[in-house]
């Protein structure tokens, strides 16, 4: 390998070779139609927390998948601890001490934590459980990660499952840990715990690379940050020497407005009225319990909470995809508790569901996706037929009005970027002139620019007098868009208050189920009382 050695000398100055544990040089990875990584350089120092920041689609995941051996780069070189590395598979990466925790966990739901940790390891053939269990307990102790080694995965929260993934990597001897958007599914409290754990690991000599598109996390947790934009590395900076607005500008490539232009809107009559609603989840367990809410015309009511606390079931009960097992739902005074979905659509209930692809048909054209809600009515539907000219005019109109970036209306919707897909979805729902617009996680996975436009569309609906029910895990989003905020935990409303009175600490407690305020579901009651009088549950 003498050639490789000399190459290092040429490529990297002596001092970085000393401290850099990973060097990636000129990484190019092409996918059909996109260059996901376009000559990316990355240098990660031993013992640091290195943030990889970039908008969605910037190529962060791809770059790390290259490092972890999932993708093979078209060009470029990788050095690990001063050695030229040929990483052809995750096994190779693990051998080099690199572990990766993906956005989607890869755990066997019905197995225990211990079983998952040792799954696939060679030495785990003969009754290795006891030794493994002991080692897992040591690791959890050492890094302050609470997990029961005997729990089954399905019993664990997202945060706990993530810890299992981290344990898996550590157990396999990972010295360098890559985490892909690790905080996207955590509560603020869990996020804090995770960052603590990461700090303890770096104190023990581990190195952490974490991917994110959230600026405040970069500032809070990282030692250095590398910014990616459209596959290229824009800069690597000492975190201490930079700030949020500087990073945002590097990430997006232009100035970003951080404030929202939220107009004063007089709220109208109650549009959505939910009274003591109960519903079950797919496993038949209670997911929504005696939940009561009112949403007024011209108001955004935000529901904050960690995903999996009944939000999805609540939305589906309102749209009619899930049976209510108790209680009552009314829209504009009409009881819709047990009417089929189509009748609810006709009464003005429109919905952007959290799982985008349950409301879109990936392989069908944008035009065909845009007519999903109104294909039955003229001018789109005429008699038994669809009017193709009307479809074309309608689709082109929406594409123009909502600035959906697409070659044309015939392009399959799955070919669009996340932001444009979401804009198309929202355009379709808004175009029906809803009385009630439900928007679940409307900006999840979107970059700053796309998020901004989605927010503006929601605010415009509010001004038009639509009742908007916003469901989001992003607290910042919920607080800045909503007029009132409800916190949901295990299917119950833990507190409901005007957004301007929000207290982050209390919200965190409510999201974790540790605090419950007396329920005041109506606007009048909430305005009439100081919500801060709440008692810990």
């Amino acid at each position, binding site marked *: 390998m003498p050639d490789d050695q000399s190459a290092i000398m040429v490529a990297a100055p002596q001092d970085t070779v000393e401290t850099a544990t990973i060097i990636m040089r000129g990484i190019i990875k092409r*996918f059909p139609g996109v260059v996901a990584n376009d000559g990316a350089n990355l240098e990660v120092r031993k013992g640091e927390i290195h943030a990889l920041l970039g908008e969605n689609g910037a190529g962060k995941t791809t770059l790390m998948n290259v490092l972890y051996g999932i993708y093979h780069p078209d060009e470029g070189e990788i050095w690990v601890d001063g050695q030229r590395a040929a990483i052809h598979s995750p096994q190779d990466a693990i051998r080099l001490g690199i572990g990766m925790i993906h956005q989607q966990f890869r755990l066997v739901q019905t197995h225990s934590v211990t079983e998952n940790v040792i799954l696939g390891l060679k030495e785990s053939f003969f009754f290795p459980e006891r030794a493994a269990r002991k080692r897992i307990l040591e690791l959890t102790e050492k890094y302050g990660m609470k997990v029961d080694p005997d729990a089954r995965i399905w019993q664990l929260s997202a945060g706990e499952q993530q810890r299992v993934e981290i344990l898996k990597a550590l157990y396999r001897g990972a010295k360098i840990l890559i985490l892909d958007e690790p905080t996207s599914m955590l509560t603020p409290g869990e996020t804090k715990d995770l960052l603590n754990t990461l700090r303890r690991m770096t104190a023990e000599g581990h190195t952490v690379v974490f991917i994110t598109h959230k600026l405040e996390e970069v500032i809070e947790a990282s030692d250095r940050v590398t910014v990616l934009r459209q596959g290229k590395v824009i800069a690597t900076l000492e975190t201490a020497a930079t700030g949020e607005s500087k990073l945002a500008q590097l990430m997006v490539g232009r100035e970003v407005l951080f404030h929202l232009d939220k107009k004063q809107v007089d709220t109208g009559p109650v549009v959505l009225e939910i009274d003591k609603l109960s519903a079950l989840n797919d496993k038949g367990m209670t997911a929504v319990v005696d939940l009561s809410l009112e949403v007024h015309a011209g108001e955004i009511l935000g529901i904050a909470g960690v995903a999996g606390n009944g939000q999805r079931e609540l939305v589906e009960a309102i749209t009619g995809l899930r049976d209510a097992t108790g209680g009552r739902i009314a829209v504009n005074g009409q009881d819709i508790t047990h009417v089929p979905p189509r009748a609810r659509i006709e009464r003005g209930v429109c919905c952007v569901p959290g799982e985008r692809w349950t409301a879109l048909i990936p392989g069908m054209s944008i035009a065909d996706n845009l007519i999903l809600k109104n294909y039955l009515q003229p001018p789109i539907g005429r008699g038994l037929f*669809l009017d193709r000219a009307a479809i074309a005019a309608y689709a082109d109109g929406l594409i123009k009005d909502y600035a959906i970036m697409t070659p044309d209306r015939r392009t399959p919707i799955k070919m669009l970027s996340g932001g444009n897909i979401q804009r198309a979805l929202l355009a379709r729902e808004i175009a029906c002139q809803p009385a009630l617009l439900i928007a679940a996680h409307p900006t999840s996975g979107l970059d700053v620019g796309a998020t901004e436009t989605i927010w503006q569309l929601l605010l415009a609906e509010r001004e038009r007098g639509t009742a908007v029910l916003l469901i989001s895990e992003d607290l910042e989003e919920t607080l800045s868009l909503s007029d009132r905020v409800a916190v949901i935990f295990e299917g119950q409303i833990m507190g409901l208050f005007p957004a301007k009175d929000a207290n982050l600490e209390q919200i965190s407690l409510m999201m974790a189920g540790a605090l419950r305020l007396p329920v005041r579901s109506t606007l009048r009651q909430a305005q009439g009382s100081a919500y801060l009088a709440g008692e810990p549950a």
Partner: protein
Amino acid sequence: MKIPRLRFERRLSSPQWLQVAALVVSLLLAMLTIAVIFYALGVNPLIAFQRIFRGGFGSVYGLKETVTKSIPLMLAGVGLTLAFKGRMYNIGAEGQLFMGAIVASGLALEFSEWPAYILLPVMFLGGFLGGALWAAIPAILKARFRVDEVLTSLMLVYVASDAVKYLVYGPWRGTDTRGFPITDEFSAAAQLPRLIDSRIHYPTLILALLLAVLIYLLVARTKLGYEIRVTGENPDAARYAGMNYQKIALLVMLISGGLAGLAGVGEVAGIHFRMRPPEGISPGYGFTAIIVAWLARLNPLAAILTAFLLGGLLVGGDAIQIALNLPAATVHVFNGVILLFVIAGELFTRYRIRLEF
């Protein structure tokens, strides 16, 4: 030493040219595999292929036979494009074809004095209903009890086939058939006209072509077709948009079963003029129709062409069975190999696969 390895990367989209290329390459590989089989059977593959082609397409007689056999393939295949579009994996067109044949034969034997212009339409209508109802069973079982329609529709093939056997060996066995398990010949009114010097029962052919166009228009231009496409591509989105999933599933099954039933009517009223044991009525048209639909990429108009091609393969297969003394199952082996490769070929349109050293 490095062992080369295969890597799979998911594609976000698959361009048209790739889909065509995958199809062509799949067919070539299928041919290659079939060539190996011929070789193993001690037959020169080149000669065999040449005989197949000449048998199916190389003479006027062959072409006529090819068209004749493409009629049931077209009817059943067009129906299956619709079912598959709606994500109902109807594997039992063969059984639905038999039911169509049974109903049509029953009508022909019972009302033999009716004039042709009443009897034949009634037979087609009855055959359609027979096939449709037979296909409704899996659809209802799926809607009610979530039973997989692949299994039920396939199992019902054997029930229908045994029903045919029972009828021709039992109550419907003819009076002047010298003991053969067949019915009496239908009255002239129940016999479809044919093109001169051929077995092409053109009313059925015209019906098949018409239905291919109709189904195409249904899928591409109507509200119902839109609902079928949405349901087939994403049932969640269909539910979300308030479409009645079960109604649509039932409907596509009824139509595809009905079309297979029409194929059965054509066989008894246009080819045999009587009911025979199941092997006599269909050499597996209902199964071959699956390949017709799949090769046509679920496009009913393309199914006209693929039905013709596979009809030719059936005729050519018959020809080499006799000429080269090959077992009767040879053609089924072909069909299986072709389907296998075509489906495997789809993998290439969905993943990028490369060899890495």
